[in-house]
């Protein structure tokens, strides 16, 4: 179980960024009091347009950045991501297209290397490797340098390596971003398998069809704030719509109208 409590993160904008975002404000609130819970055997989707605060929220959860306020708690022991980040990292894996594997090494070497960093013994590493390499068809390429792998195989290797420690929580930023249709399907199928195994999964996406199909619950985030949380059915009922895309635009329009009114 993972509980996100009132995460707020503000960035200071440089002159260039202020010009790009057409604002006079030197600070941008990327995430504002973001709160949600994700249970075991659940895929939670953070849905929003570009710049809505999805990646910032996931980065705060995965300890890559520290929130200005708020915290994230992991498991029944409520391990604080803010105060006990080294321990917390052992419980989850964070996947994003920004995180790359060193081109010079082979999937086999990288799997062993990261396994050791997670404190696993050789037998556990081998056992997990066998399972994941078989699942993603990496065996054939286990001794090929990452630089020589196809984009799809690189992504599969990234996923396998990030799951080396069989984490309870999996955080995936834009899981199908840049993948071909076959690899994307492999990834989404695997996420469903992981959920069925009892894992807690959070993904971020701006693809409505992916969120509709894959997520048990969805949180729509716009301008750094969670605007609605619920299952697909609950969101459609609350917005009185038939599909997620339509629901999203109603919420988006409402937010922009409120902001306009406030201004």
């Amino acid at each position, binding site marked *: 179980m993972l509980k996100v409590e009132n995460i707020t993160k503000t960035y200071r904008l440089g002159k260039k960024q202020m010009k790009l975002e057409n604002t006079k404000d030197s600070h941008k609130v990327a995430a504002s009091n973001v709160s949600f819970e994700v249970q075991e055997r659940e895929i939670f989707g953070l849905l929003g347009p570009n710049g809505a605060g999805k990646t910032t929220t996931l980065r705060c959860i*995965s300890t890559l*950045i520290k929130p200005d306020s708020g915290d994230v708690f992991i498991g029944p022991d409520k391990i604080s991501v803010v105060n006990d980040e080294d321990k917390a990292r052992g419980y989850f*894996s964070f996947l994003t297209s920004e*995180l790359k594997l060193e081109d*010079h090494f082979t999937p086999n070497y990288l799997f062993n290397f*990261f396994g050791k960093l*997670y404190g696993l013994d050789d037998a556990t590493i081998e056992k997990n490797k066998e399972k994941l390499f078989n699942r993603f068809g990496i065996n054939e390429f286990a001794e090929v340098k990452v630089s020589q792998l196809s984009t799809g195989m690189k992504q599969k290797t990234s996923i396998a390596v990030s799951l080396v420690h069989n984490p309870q929580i999996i955080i995936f930023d834009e899981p199908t971003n840049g993948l071909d249709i076959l690899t994307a399907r492999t990834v989404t199928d695997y996420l469903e398998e992981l959920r069925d195994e009892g894992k807690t999964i959070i993904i971020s996406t701006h693809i409505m069809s992916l969120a509709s199909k894959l997520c048990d619950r969805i949180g729509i985030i716009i301008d750094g704030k969670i605007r609605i949380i619920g299952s697909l059915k609950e969101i459609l009922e609350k917005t009185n719509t038939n599909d997620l895309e339509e629901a999203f635009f109603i919420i988006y329009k409402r937010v922009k109208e409120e902001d306009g009114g406030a201004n």
Partner: protein
Amino acid sequence: MKNIMTIIRKEMARVFTDKGMLLSLFVLPPLTIILIYGLMGISAENETDKINEYVPTVYIVNSPENILFGENKNVEQFEKLVSASYSEITLKLENDILKIEELTKKVNNEEIDLLIVFNDAFENNIINKTNPEVSMYYNVNNTYSQNTFYKFQTILGAYSDSLLNNRIDNPNLLQVFYTTTIQKGDVEKAQGQMISMILPMLIVIYLMAGAMGVGMESIAGEKERGTIATLLVTPIKRSELAIGKIISISIIGLLSTLASFLGLVGILPTFAKISGETDGAGLSPTYGPMDYIMLLTIMLVAVLLFVTLIVIISAYSKSVKQAGSLVMPVYLLVVGAAMFNMFNQTVDESFVPYTIPIFNIVLSLKAVFSFDLLITNWLITIVTTVIYTLVLIFIIQKMFRSEKIMFNK
């Protein structure tokens, strides 16, 4: 500690399984040294051979004939003395003084290497003890002409001595006193001083250069490619990551320096030849175990300091390219400190200079080679450098924790 070892092993594997890196870190530096100094040696040798094999063209106007000073006292004609000094020479004799102007033009045009003009009545002047004049014309822009001139200065000196010996009954009267030179002091220390001029500079340059390539690649390169973020989401502590990186870069830097030194040792005889030594004796004073301990410890702390500096700059940079341009001023600072010490002949015994970062490393290296390093100053250098390194490691840890720095792509 386990995680630090894992990071070190990975960094080592990165370098030792990459042919390009092996080439640039361990093969090219010694090869460059061998190539540069080897070419310099070959060039110096060729030049000497060329000069030795060269057959000079010398014109002598009014070359002196036999000069009789009395019974059994005579000096043979000058021409014979010249022929005895050269195995091969194109010697032309001229008695027409009107041709002097034409011949000087030929010297100017490098057609003649040397023109020697004796007085019209040279022999009579010698006999009558009225000092005659000998003029020598050579071309300052031509090496062969210059060398012929220097050689003829010696020949003329010998000729002058033999004339003098015949002119007076007791030539010893002209020698007012004799001089004898006796070298005192520590000869080894004097030899060490020559090494202490060059080696400290080379050591710090190699240490810095060895650490630079791999250091920038290991930090800025990983940041640029996004691979460091993958490490940052594992449970490894930032301090473990920083220390693992620093130790591995230091080991690689030291090994690269060692490779450069092997190249230097290989080329030492040539180096001696270039610097005018015939057998390299001036470059081989004997250092004791304590000197080596001091040398190695100084090199060790030096490489740690250089690596931490490079890591800080690389962590701050967005790319290897940016790191390269930011490291350059530090590299120049190191080279500057080394150069400053190279020409500074006195070794400071006060402890204050041994507390100045980087400068103290060069100063201590210089003092080790010249047998002048006091134990206290050695310890001050080690302790202060370790303190500076620890401060920098602390900063690196902070930087590794900073999202602004680690994700400023």
